Structures are given as C-alpha cells and as structure tokens.
C-alpha cells in the first residue's frame, strides 16, 4: 500500500478561496515534500519540510507536519485558476534508501 495517501482525491473550489489538502503516511520519515503537476507535465517541487519542523511557508503555501499523527497538510491561500493541478506528497523514509515514496495525489480545480 502507499506510504503517503492524499485526501481528498479531488477538490473543486472558486477562485479566491483557500484549498487544503492532507497527506497521511505510515512509517517514520526524514522529510516530507509536496509537488505540483500540471496536466500532462512533469512534477514541480513546492516545499520540503523536515521531520523536526512543524510548519513552513512559501508565498501562498503553508505546510504543516504532525509527526505524532503521521500527517501533513498543504494550504493554498487565495487560490487562482492557475493553481489548478494535481498535488502530491512524497515521503523520504528514515533509514531508507535514496528513494521518495509518492502518494496518488489530490486533483485541485480552481474555477474562475
């Protein structure tokens, strides 16, 4: 089964609203990363949060990490139509190899 599971699978909001996506994982992590993928394109790194961090900001993005609950959330504030994309969380496991484990993603649609 997937190490990271995003929730919800799909989200549709109006421009200007906030979008929140959640990620849960199963085993201890070294860091957790969020990526965005526009339709038919490669993934773009958004933000990395380390296991000893609780919150991180980057522009309109806010990521939180709760290692006790093994969960993370990505908040996009004041969303724009250009934020329409799929969003993936990826975990790098403690004691693991060089690979990231990706979830299946949340498909976000921002309606103008």
């Amino acid at each position, binding site marked *: 089964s997937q190490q990271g599971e995003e929730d919800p699978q799909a989200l549709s909001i109006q421009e200007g609203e906030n979008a929140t996506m959640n990620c849960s994982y199963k085993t201890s992590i070294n860091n957790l*990363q969020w990526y965005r993928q526009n339709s*038919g*394109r490669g*993934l773009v790194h958004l933000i990395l949060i380390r296991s000893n961090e609780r919150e991180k900001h980057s522009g309109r993005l806010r990521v939180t990490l709760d290692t006790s609950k093994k969960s993370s959330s990505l908040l996009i504030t004041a969303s724009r139509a250009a934020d329409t994309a799929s969003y*993936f969380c990826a975990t790098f496991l403690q004691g*693991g190899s*060089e*690979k*990231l484990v*990706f979830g299946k993603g949340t498909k976000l649609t921002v309606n103008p």
Partner: protein
Amino acid sequence: DVKVTQSSRYLVKRTGEKVFLECVQDMDHENMFWYRQDPGLGLRLIYFSYDVKMKEKGDIPEGYSVSREKKERFSLILESASTNQTSMYLCASSFVLAGGHGTDTQYFGPGTRLTVL
C-alpha cells in the same frame, strides 16, 4: 535553474521493439530516477541510480533496464516493448542529502508519453 530534459515528449512504438528513453540533467546531481505514472496508480519507481554505473531496482523493474555511463545522463531501456508499458515516463534527479545518504528535492523532466501498439 535546474534543467532536466527528456529525449521525447511523445513516442509511439510497436510491440517487441527495443525502446530507449533518455534523460539529461545539468546540475551535477548524484541521484537520478525513472518513474512511470498511470491513472489511479500514481508514480511508481522503476529504477534509480546514485552514481555513475550504479543502479538499484525500484518497485517495478520488470521489463526494464537502465544505463548510466555519465553522471548527467540516465537511460531507460525497454528491451521488448509490450502494450502494458504504455504510460507516462518521468525522469528526475536530486542531490544526495547532507551526510551522504538519501534524496533531497527531486527535479523532474517534462515526461515522455509512450504508446506501445
């Protein structure tokens, strides 16, 4: 800016053909990765390489091989393409984390959509 390029955006091949997918990165990254992405299955790691001539199997290596003769280039080879290898293929690269182990941010290429007929 980091640039990861893939040799083709779209590729159509016939069953049984040998297929080469090329990936080049310009940031002197140690790690390089090949994933495939299918609807409902997310990204699945096929192979990765942490150094020249070094490779490790990912989660779904069957039917694939890889080659890394130079640090900047990582090739994915489908020895005999089959229809179930129709997919989007994504290449990525990254530095090793401080301490010499693990992956930091991964930088992705634009993807190759392969169709095997």
